[in-house]
């Protein structure tokens, strides 16, 4: 079984300040972990993924995430928020099985960026 908990349903930051989105996971297998972003009325776009290589993963648009096995966490950060970062972010865990990988989504964190 696998599950994902996003610890904040809403985060509000000022433009130019750091962003931290927290994610904890549980998985019976060695997990793959992802962050996806969804802008209003749009589909989901992959920001970054962890698949058992480097524990610090760099993604698009200046985002990065660190996999910490001991803490079962995969927090997403960005040093300086931009107005275009206002969106909903989903932390996702996957276990690759013979019949196709299944993704389990967290509940999402909605980010508001204030000017």
């Amino acid at each position, binding site marked *: 079984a696998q599950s994902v908990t996003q610890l904040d349903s809403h985060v509000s930051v000022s433009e130019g300040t750091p962003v931290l989105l927290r994610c904890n996971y549980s998985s019976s297998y060695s997990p793959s972990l992802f962050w996806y972003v969804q802008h209003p009325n749009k*589909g*989901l776009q*992959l920001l970054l993924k962890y*698949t058992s290589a480097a524990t610090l993963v760099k993604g698009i648009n200046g985002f990065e995430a660190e996999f910490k096995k001991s803490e079962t966490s995969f927090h997403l950060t960005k040093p300086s928020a931009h107005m275009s970062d206002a969106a909903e972010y989903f932390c*996702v865990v996957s276990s690759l099985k013979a*019949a*196709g*990988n299944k*993704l389990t989504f967290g509940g999402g964190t909605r980010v508001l960026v204030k000017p």
Partner: protein
Amino acid sequence: DAGITQSPRHKVTETGTPVTLRCHQTENHRYMYWYRQDPGHGLRLIHYSYGVKDTDKGEVSDGYSVSRSKTEDFLLTLESATSSQTSVYFCAISEGTSNEQFFGPGTRLTVL
């Protein structure tokens, strides 16, 4: 962008009517998925397919059926729509060799 289209993009229907949503891909990916998105739940897997005529249930499959007669098309059917099936439905695809999934633009379904 991955070549995934969904049709229709918006649909309003009445309780008890059948509804079919279509997902079409041009990537020749083996795996296809249907999710529903509801506030506070993220996306939840309804059904998925790992090849032509090969499908399996996800975590919220009750009231839904799927079919995949061609690699490029994956259909989701609500045999008798209910108001609880009002949602945004996303199709996704993956190669299978890496487990990231690529998502379509979504279909907003309203059941009155």
